[in-house]
């Protein structure tokens, strides 16, 4: 009995997750505080707070590349400002994804790693559409990131999005955080069906089917 349990644990898929967190004013973001607080404590999940690590934008490229190498699932976790990522994240992309390491000849270090974004935004889901205030769907706005991931031979998944943070109530913040925790826990411990996941617009939508 015990033996089979050990065997089960051994064969259980384990994904090592790297959360690259970019937020220039984290201390004032209720939604993000709740999300970050719920990140499960696990030796397989690394939370990396980049604005705290590189306040001067002087990114340690070698260190970042090592972190990427050491994980299977990479998450860019950031708020959406002006339909884009915070500047340090762009800096990170510019500096860390080097030719010859991340892409190009012999640049295969990221090959087949899974990558996606966790995004918080003030706007509602409804306004992010062709007829809405924001005119574009989130996924369309994220195309440059999608393409970046493609160039690096990574598997880019749909984003996990928390909408409406401007007027979010405390309890909703908590709820979103709670779901995020469960979601990360699931990612850590399960094999992911990429083809199936890619059919959904948001990872939230896919994950809600897994929670029942």
């Amino acid at each position, binding site marked *: 009995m015990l033996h089979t349990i050990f065997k089960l644990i051994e064969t259980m898929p384990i994904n090592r997750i790297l959360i690259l967190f970019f937020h220039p004013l984290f201390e004032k973001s209720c939604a993000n505080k709740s999300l970050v607080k719920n990140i499960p404590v696990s030796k397989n999940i690394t939370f990396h707070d980049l604005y705290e690590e590189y306040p*001067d934008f*002087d990114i340690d*490229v070698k260190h970042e590349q090592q972190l990427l190498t050491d994980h299977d699932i990479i998450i860019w976790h950031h708020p959406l400002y002006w339909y884009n990522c915070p500047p340090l994240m762009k800096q990170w992309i*510019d*500096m860390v994804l*080097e*030719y010859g390491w991340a892409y*190009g*000849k012999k640049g295969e270090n990221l090959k087949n790693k899974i990558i996606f974004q966790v995004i918080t935004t003030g706007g509602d889901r409804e306004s992010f559409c062709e007829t809405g205030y924001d005119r574009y769907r989130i996924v369309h706005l994220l195309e440059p990131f999608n393409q970046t991931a493609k160039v690096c031979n990574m598997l880019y998944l749909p984003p996990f999005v928390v909408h409406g943070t401007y007027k979010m109530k405390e309890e909703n913040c908590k709820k979103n955080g709670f779901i995020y925790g469960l979601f990360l826990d699931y990612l850590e411990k399960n094999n992911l069906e990429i083809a199936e996941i890619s059919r959904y617009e948001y990872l939230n939508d896919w994950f809600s089917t897994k929670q029942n």
Partner: protein
Amino acid sequence: MIGFQQNRINMETEFLFQAIIYLAAAVIFVPIAKKLGMSSILGYLLAGIIIGPFVIGFIGQEAHSIMHFAEFGIVMMLFLIGLEMEPGKFWKMRKVFFGMGSMQLFGTILILFLGCYLLLDWNWKTTLAVSLTLALSSSAIVLQSLSEKGLRNTAVGQSSFAVVLFQDIAVIPILIFLPILATTIPETSSDINQSLISSLPLWLQAGIIVGIISLIYFGGRFLFVLLFKIIAKTQVQELFTATALLLVVSISCLMDLIGISPAFGTFLSGVVLANSEFRHELQGDIAPFKGLLLGLFFIGVGASINFQLVLDNPLFILVFGAILTLVKFTVSFLISRFYKKKTEENIVFALGLSQSGEFGFVIMSFCMQLNIVPIILANQIMAIIAMSMVSTPFLQFINERFVIPNIRINKKESEEETDVINEHNPVIIAGFGHFGSTVGRLLRANNIKSTILDNDCNQIDFLKKMGFRAHYGDATRLELLEAAGCANAKLFIAAIDDPKINLSIIKTLRLHFPNLKILTRARNRVDAYELIDHKVDHIYRETLYSAVNMGVDVLVELGFRKYTATRQANQFIKNDELTTCKLAKKRSDKMAYLTAINAEIKWLKKLLKNDLKSQQAANNHSWDGEHLKKKMAK
């Protein structure tokens, strides 16, 4: 001929033997005094007493001549002080100089004169001569202890300095005045007071004096600086030192010739040179001579105390000494109060000036020759002067340990009642000079409360008014650290100017508050090494960050884009901090090297090599299209 040789060798060994005695005494006793928390002056004085004729007897009556020789240390000290004092600063001091200076001198003379005249059966001439002698304080003790305690630039320091300087200058009229008191002027006196010009009519004397002083002033402005420039070009270090010494010695000599205090003359030339580019070089060159000579002087004072006289009439000497100290203390205290200083300041000021000084020896010997004061009395007075000089460091020690803390506690208790709660601030800043205050201001701008420790009580009271929690005193003392709330604070910022004091604070904190996180200021790499040896993690070198910032601007001026220059600077700082850590560890294997100048050059070589490597690594190729093209073409 052989006999002469033999004799010379004997004299040489004799000289060397003497040197060994003095140096050994200093080497043994000064560290002991320091270890006990007392000033080095006391160490020298004790060393003098012990090697003197009445304890071990290594040195005999020559103590007096040693003292005369070593008095030159005082002259050098005034030169150094002059160097630190720009003419503008000196001008600002004039009110304190004339006000406090004259009040102290005349007040003390008057009280001493009346007291002695009424209570003792001396004739009025003797009494007056003795009063004049004793009213002068010791510039050596006052100034040396001020700089040792880091009080030189505080209000107390400034006023003490002004008073002592006034006295120094007052010596000249006193020496001129004394022969008038004498009923018979013996022939032998001529070598002491008679200057080259004293036979000339008074108006001519005055003219010559004014002329020479202005000569020094303008000579300093143009001639000295020109001379130093020429010497500096030869690149021979000793020659520069020799020139500096030559300058000081010749000015003293000139002053002696016209009968003015050499100390005043060199002070003046120091002031004149204060604005020149050679200021620091001169300071560095003269300081060791000054230190050694002053030490020698204090040893001489200790050795010259005639304990036989003291034992013959202990009651008179001890009582007179005590009363003298009390009178001088009271007068200074009242003057300081009159100038509306704080109680602590009054005490520090008055205690500092409470002894009689080295000029007393000169004046007393002069009086003996003039037959104004009987020989036995004169010797007794000299013993009293020497003992009062010994007493000052002791009294200061007692004051710092027991009196000042009590005053502060009483004051604090009454203030505490008005405080709402005994708040515990998360940050303690030791030293609120330019460095500490910058940190403090940044914290305050962000609503972080900090407790401040400083040894300038005006600063403290001002800070309290501004709503800071501030404590006065020596931050190396455990009681003060406890009172500041080290047990509850999160961070301790060691920002005192003197790296040695910072280090000793850190040692105390480590021992008693192991959980307190320490961030410390370091002047330079050498300080940083020492701090790393003591396992301090957060070291902020003053000379690193601003220098690198300047380097960035230099790169920009030369055509670098600002962002690239800034990135190189960031990398440079990171790398420099890393190498400093590494080198600190390597350094301890080769401690002996450090004494040599070569060592510094060797380290610099290593650093430069390291920089080359690290900046290459820093060249990453983000945004570099050229580089990409090349790489893709491969």
